[in-house]
């Protein structure tokens, strides 16, 4: 084939451009530490990167959700423990007041303490976390119990709505303990619903009553009702504990998928530093070699050797 100077020039130029492009690409990868710069670099990888990135962001959010749910549940749990303690104290008082040896005076004192316990239970029912009331159902902005009115109002001002948090893709858990549903209800709203408040009010009334029937009621129905309330609280505590375990499991899952997703994203998008440096060095070497050969080929012609 006949070769002309211009052909050589063109060839050298296009080779230089190609080599330069490779250097440019390698430099870009090095400086951004990423190999996936545009979707066309790896279309399937780009799609995967977008979905994985969304998953990572979702995981961050799930983590925040779980943490908030845990705070809520832990506060619920400790409040329930507090109420359990109050209930035990009420039980002791009931046993003390129900004995025949207790005089009327003593029973009135016990009744007064029981009323204090009711106030404390209602106060516990108004526990809030982060500015919202835990036991008001979905009426989270109004206190579920009236602790100020005189004479006392026992009614429940919340509702029975479920408050839930999403702790994973498509998984939500109920995080509020409902205090006014079930038989007997956990705390209830007084008025004969069998809830803890109602039971305590009955005990207080029977202590104050002083008749034989009252004393009998204390020993039988009231004691049974209080036991039923205790069972109920224990049930709810168990549920809360189970949910807390679920939150732990969900958090573990989020951590695991987070790790996997991070690794996948990194594999898809990020460069392997050693490979990238090698590529850059190779590209530079090739470019320099192309420059060198180009320079030695383009210069001479027969002209240089004619006298």
């Amino acid at each position, binding site marked *: *084939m*006949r*070769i*002309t*100077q*211009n*052909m050589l020039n*063109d*060839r050298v130029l*296009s080779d230089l451009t190609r080599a330069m492009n490779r250097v440019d690409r390698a430099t870009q990868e090095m400086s951004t530490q990423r190999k*996936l710069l*545009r*979707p*066309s*670099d*790896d*279309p*399937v990888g*780009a*799609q995967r*990167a*977008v*979905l994985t*990135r*969304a*998953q990572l*962001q*979702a995981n*961050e*959010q799930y983590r*925040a*959700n779980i943490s*908030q749910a845990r705070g809520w549940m832990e506060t619920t749990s400790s409040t329930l423990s507090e109420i359990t303690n109050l209930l035990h104290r009420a039980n002791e008082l009931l046993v003390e007041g129900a004995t025949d040896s207790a005089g009327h005076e003593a029973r009135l004192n016990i009744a007064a303490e029981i009323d204090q316990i009711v106030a404390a239970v209602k106060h516990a029912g108004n526990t809030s976390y*982060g*500015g*919202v*009331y835990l036991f*008001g*159902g*979905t*009426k*989270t*902005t109004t206190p579920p119990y009236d602790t100020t009115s005189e004479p006392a109002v026992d009614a429940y001002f919340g*509702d029975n*709505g479920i*408050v*839930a*948090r*999403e702790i994973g*893709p*498509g998984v*939500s858990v109920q995080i*509020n303990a409902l205090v006014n549903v079930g038989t007997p209800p956990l705390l209830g709203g007084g008025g004969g619903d069998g809830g803890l408040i109602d039971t305590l009010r009955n005990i207080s009334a029977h202590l104050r009553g002083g008749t034989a029937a009252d004393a009998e009621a204390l020993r039988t129905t009231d004691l049974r009702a209080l036991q039923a309330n205790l069972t109920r609280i224990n049930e709810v505590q168990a549920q809360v504990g189970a949910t807390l375990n679920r939150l732990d499991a969900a958090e573990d899952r989020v951590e695991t998928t987070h790790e996997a997703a991070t690794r996948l994203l990194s594999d898809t*998008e990020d460069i392997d530093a050693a490979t990238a440096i090698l590529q850059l060095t190779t590209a530079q070497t090739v470019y320099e070699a192309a420059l060198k050969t180009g320079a030695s080929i383009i210069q001479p*012609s*027969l*002209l240089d050797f*004619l006298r």
Partner: protein
Amino acid sequence: MPSGISSFFGLNTALRGLQASQVALDVTAHNIANADTAGYTRQAVELEQVVGLKVSAGARAGNGGALLGGGVDVTAYRRIRDAFADLQYRTQKSISSEADTTAQTLANVELVLNEPGDKGIATLLSRLWDAWQQVANQPEDTATKGALVVNAIALADGIRSLQAQLTAVKDNAAQELAAYTTAGGDILSNAAEIARLNAEIKRATAAGQQPNALLDQRDRLIDRLAELGHVTITELPNNSIQIAFGNVNPPLLVDDTTAWAPTPPDTSLYPTPAPGGIIGALQALSETGGTIDQYLADLDAFVNQLVTDVNAAYGGDFFDPAGTTAATIAVDAAIAADPSTVMTTAVAGSPPGANDIALAVAALRGGAADRQYAGLILRIGSEARDANRRQDAATAVLESAKARRDSVSGVSIDEEMANMIRFQRAYQASARTLSTLDDMLDTLINRTGRVGL
């Protein structure tokens, strides 16, 4: 001895030799001068010996006749060109320029898309789901609703701006196409110039001249047309030609008249699908239902899915229900005006802690809308990569086609230098012959008949 041959015959022969060498050197000079001229075809002098003198008798022993060589004549200044190499180069040129245009435009599309990364629509979408989760976590708090609406507006703005930018890329392609095909555009001005050159070439050829420079000019213009679209060239008498895009009828130009009189932009100028080249690429990119139109349609489908899903889960108008395309997506005006009106629950009386709606909307994360958008990225990425590969392949083939053509038609300085020495020597030899003949005649004229003087 031969008789009947003029004593001065040899002088003329030597003179022709001198003149031929001079002409050959002139052509060499012309070649060297144009070594770097784009589109220049190297020329060579065609020499032919002259049958100068017919001697009927006495030229040879035994009184035979002869035809005496009378020196050399220049018969042609030949352009050294290979029609097949031209055909190859031009075919490849239209393929390569089509791939170039497509790859460049799709690179712009990728730039506009800005994915993968944390500045694209995917991130804005994720933030919207995050914001809904935050609302679900704190439905009592109007601040989270404010943040939600801000994020939703940012997403809608981002989608609208992406749509506008994609449309701009498409419109630019359409405008470029129009610029090429209008009355004053590249195609027709080239065609008109070729028609004019055809007329001149025809006239010169008919008059027996060799319009090499004009032919070179015409070839350059044809190369330019081949870049714009695949051309078919038909030879006509007297070196004239007709050119058509593809096999379309009527041809772009016949002889010295352009057959087109388009009203801009006239898409009937080229066949459908367009004949490759830049206009083919631009047409495929910008036409209705073309490459970018399909991306816009995909984007619309994504927006429709997003708006429909969110509004269905929301149980009302979170996004303006009228805005189901990428150009029109907007957060419902009432919500945008007062974020506290964002509903979080469908429960009667809307207790402040209920978050069923927020949970339902947040659960859309990673759903159909997310997947549709990721699908769009996959599609654009795949097509851009395909275009880049075609560009690389076409460039490589074009380079070798160009090398083949240059190999035939390009000027080699080495070759010209060697020729220069050859012609210089020939010139010197002819001059030497002339002076030898002159010496002989001097002897004959001035020295003969002077014996004893």
